[in-house]
């Protein structure tokens, strides 16, 4: 389907300086597959999106609201730390440490690719980042999981739900990205 002209593939590749620091995707894929196996063999498969619900409950608790008890949805999840919430906290620590050691820390507001398509307005990028995050978690919680729980873990566990969700998000994501960046090489 997508048949770019000769120069476009080269133009969209990241500069060598940033990719050379990266781990090979084959090694990364094998490590992540083994990690998910370890997770299933200990407490459960990897998942992220439900932690946004738990953090909402924790915030409500912090502000003295009892909504986390009265909402049917929130009360079906814990409002305290458990294995899966610690996993999300660990991801933040692991991401930070890996970036720190390998020189990947970067406090930029507007990604390069976004800048070349939509300009360098921080407000515009932040609005899109917020709206995108809103849709991500609204959709993930309707479906019962995200790229981690439904796709990485769900498909690996051969759950039909994972295949349906995975196919839907890739199809919609590709269509949306093609539309958003249609004038880009």
């Amino acid at each position, binding site marked *: 389907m997508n048949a770019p002209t000769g120069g*476009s*593939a080269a133009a969209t590749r990241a500069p060598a300086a940033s990719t050379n620091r*990266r*781990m090979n995707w084959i090694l*990364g*894929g094998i*490590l992540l*597959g083994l*990690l998910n196996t370890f997770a299933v063999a200990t*407490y*459960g*498969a990897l998942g*992220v999106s*439900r932690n*946004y619900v738990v*953090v909402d409950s924790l915030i409500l608790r912090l502000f003295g609201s009892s909504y986390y008890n009265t909402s049917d949805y929130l009360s*079906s999840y*814990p409002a*305290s730390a458990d*294995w*899966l919430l*610690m996993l*999300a906290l660990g991801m*933040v*620590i*692991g*991401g930070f*440490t*890996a*970036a720190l050691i390998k020189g990947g820390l*970067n*406090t930029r507001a507007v990604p390069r690719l976004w800048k070349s398509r939509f300009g360098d307005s921080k407000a515009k990028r*932040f609005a*899109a*980042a*917020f709206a995108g*995050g*809103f*849709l*991500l*978690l*609204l*959709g*993930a*919680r309707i*479906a*019962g999981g*995200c*790229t981690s*729980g439904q796709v990485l873990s*769900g498909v*690996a*566990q051969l759950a039909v*739900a994972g295949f349906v969700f995975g196919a839907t998000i890739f199809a*919609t*994501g*590709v269509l949306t*990205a*093609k539309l958003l*960046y249609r004038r880009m090489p």
Partner: protein
Amino acid sequence: MIATAYIFAQSASDAMSGIVGGTDARALIVGLLTGVAFGAILQRVGASSFEMIVNMLRLKDLTIMKFMFLAIAVAAVGIYVVSQFWPDQAHIGIAPLYLGGLIAGGVIFGIGWAVAGYCPGTALVAMAEGKLDAAITVLGGLVGAFVLTLIWDPVKSALVDPLNYGNKSVPDIIGAKPLLVAVVFAVLAVIFIMWLDRRGKGEAAEPGGRHGLLER
């Protein structure tokens, strides 16, 4: 029916089950360390990079797609080896197959994925790298999850309760041994990955192209 034997109550999937994996000190520490490894792998591969994610969705650079498929293929075999030989250790949780919610939620998610340039997990990692827009995505996610709690009743009756076929797995449906299905699936996934890789190589045939399976 076979698959129900593989579903363990204490980890009956993320989807609507409450506490996952336990709350004792050992569970919390193992969870934290598992997360550290998860975050570090995503960061090191570049899966938390806005450019890498958006260029995957634009079908310009399929590195992340190959990475994900390989991780899934390895985990599929690993998980069902564990469940075959150490069934008491396999905390498998098959998410319920409710078509309306999976497709509607998937469409909403897919749009958000392309707009944000992150998914819920990679946004956490990118935020940890210091990227401010990823922190805003996490904030948007907290609000999005909160808004769902306000509209949960109509969402549940329209999208979750109807067309709900329960916790269906592929081995369950075709009636084959889960480990066999996992191995066949993994082989097909690796063939697909190699095809993607060759296709990427062809597109990046210029000098310096480094999409090759055995390069780097």
